[in-house]
């Protein structure tokens, strides 16, 4: 399998009046063709900033890529000029944003917004582009595309608007699709439709998807691999089954534990105490240590490296060191893991 996109040790900082905010601190991951990588984490964990850096959409001049490489098909695009980037953005890499209300131009007809990229990147004439736009609207499941083409975003419902945004992102058959919380603002039923749509399109076009979300249910639905981010770092990365059925990092335990399942009967939800750290002065050592009931002494002094769990599964927690005391995940998370394991068996029998 070829690595389509490779991010190596990426760091992004924002210069603000109160100092340098280290939003992303050394993130490395790669995405293969036809694969979906989900990045999960709380707000402020740096997941959105990471993807904005990929597309060079960081607010300039305060947002800056401090170090690291972004290899797209082998070329380092981190230092591309704006002009070079314009050739890639929207063509090879495109993006679906969170809020379809604000990511569409309210003064432009939806059709024109879809055709824009086609005319620019694929040198199509207006007529050809229009035909393609109609096809795209059909592909994303918008009824009456001829009519919809000439309407403005405000005439679309939320779900339809997000479909239009997906259509724009897909217009030039991108190799990488970056979806930044594409369903967070939508209802569950609409969300399920959009997720199905994205999966169908991926099957057809074999594009890679980087999917940002904080909803672990959505992750379980779409992802092949999962990266968990905390305080600007990836703390655990692995195949979706490894993350959900065999999580190793206490933060992942906390995330999984704090979501009630439909059959959970527990009195109290497992919570991660406190709130995420201030990235103006990131804490010394393991950034998660102050909120971690399993923290070891070393956590406050030294940052844990990525420990290998399996060939595809890595986690940054001192608990995985060979000298670390054996720690069990909290009971509620363990039960959950066992519950998952038992549903596994049931599925196998059927």
């Amino acid at each position, binding site marked *: 399998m070829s690595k389509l996109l490779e991010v190596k040790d990426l760091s992004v900082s924002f210069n603000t009046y109160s100092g340098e905010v280290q939003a992303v601190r050394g993130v490395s991951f790669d995405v293969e063709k036809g694969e979906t990588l989900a990045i999960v984490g709380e707000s402020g964990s740096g997941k959105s900033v990471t993807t904005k850096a990929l597309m060079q959409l960081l607010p300039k001049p305060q947002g800056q890529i401090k170090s690291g490489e972004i290899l797209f098909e082998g070329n380092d695009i981190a230092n591309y000029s704006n002009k070079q980037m314009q050739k890639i953005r929207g063509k090879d890499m495109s993006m679906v944003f969170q809020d379809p209300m604000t990511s569409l131009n309210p003064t432009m007809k939806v059709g024109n917004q879809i055709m824009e990229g086609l005319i620019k990147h694929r040198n199509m004439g207006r007529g050809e582009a229009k035909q393609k736009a109609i096809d795209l609207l059909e592909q994303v499941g918008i009824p009456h595309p001829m009519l919809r083409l000439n309407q403005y975003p405000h005439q679309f419902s939320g779900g339809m608007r997000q479909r239009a945004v997906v259509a724009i992102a897909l217009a030039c058959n991108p190799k990488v699709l970056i979806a930044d919380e594409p369903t967070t603002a939508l*209802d*569950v*039923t609409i969300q399920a439709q959009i997720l*199905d749509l994205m999966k169908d399109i991926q099957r057809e076009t074999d594009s890679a998807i980087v999917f940002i979300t904080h909803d672990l249910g959505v992750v379980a639905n779409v992802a092949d691999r999962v990266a968990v981010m905390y305080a600007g770092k990836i703390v655990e990365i692995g195949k*979706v089954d490894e993350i959900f059925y065999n999580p190793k990092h206490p933060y992942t335990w906390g995330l999984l534990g704090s979501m*009630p399942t439909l059959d959970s009967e527990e009195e109290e939800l497992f919570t991660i105490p406190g*709130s995420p750290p201030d990235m103006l002065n990131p804490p010394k050592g393991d950034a998660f240590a102050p909120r971690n009931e399993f923290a070891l002494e070393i956590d406050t002094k030294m940052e844990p490296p990525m420990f290998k769990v399996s060939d595809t599964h890595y986690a940054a927690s001192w608990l995985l060191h060979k000298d670390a005391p054996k720690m069990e995940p909290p009971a509620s998370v363990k039960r959950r893991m066992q519950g998952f394991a038992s549903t596994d068996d049931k599925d196998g029998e059927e």
Partner: protein
Amino acid sequence: MENEKLLEVKNLQKFFKAGRKNTIKAVNGISFDIYKGETFGLVGESGCGKSTTGRTIIRLYEATGGEVKYKNESVHGKKSKEDMLKFNRKMQMIFQDPSSSLNPRMTVMDIIAEGIDIHNLAKNETERKNRVESLLETVGLNKEHATRFPHEFSGGQRQRIGIARALAVEPEFIIADEPISALDVSIQAQVVNLLKKLQREHNLTFLFIAHDLSMVKYISDRTGVMYYGNMVELADSDELYRNPLHPYTRSLLSAIPLPDPEYERSRKRFAYDPADYDTDEEPEFREVKPDHWVRCTEKEFQQYQEQLNNK
């Protein structure tokens, strides 16, 4: 008394005018009761009228028709200032967006104490201060926070301030309108645990409005499902999730993504299209099984009963 009715909603309607000719029937005749000490969950997609219902119950909106009775007293209708004041003290609301529901120019102390001042619950400045500080501690903040402004807090903390404000007048009934939707997963669990703890300690009754079904299931004793201004199904939360009868409830349940990849791979989604169920008969809200209500036609009613008997 387990089954004392605290709130009775009868055929409540709330219409909005949209232009001269059109009316939007946001809430189109819904009825339900809320018992003392329970948590009643209200779910549905955006625009189904669940927030309007909550706001009409607390009289942020005047009802177009129908009745809301709190402890056998009508909420709507003409009231003296004193009556209104008394009523407002019993019922409080927690809003969805903690950043827009707190006045940015007021300190946390003043925000929380506003109700205390209005109802003259504190005799002097020291008592007022003590009350606010103890409220802050109840919701898991500390008393140094009292002099700060809302923008100095994170989303989860702001929601806690909103909760403290609601608790300040010692209400019996709290309407929580999507109190956790704007918060992060890890913070959501904190706030939900806090609400549960407060309910136990202060013997509160909750109306919990949300679109996150797994959270609603977790927190509520009974759940009502709304669809386009109507209540389509109402039952004990467990019963509702085990035996969803109305096709809309089934489609909602089948759409919730669960944090379980194995389940997600095998999941079959069930789409609801009201056109598939269109009949000439106007559906009515019927009790299919004790305490399990579904909006259905006569024919569907019998079909549902059979379905339940065969289980």
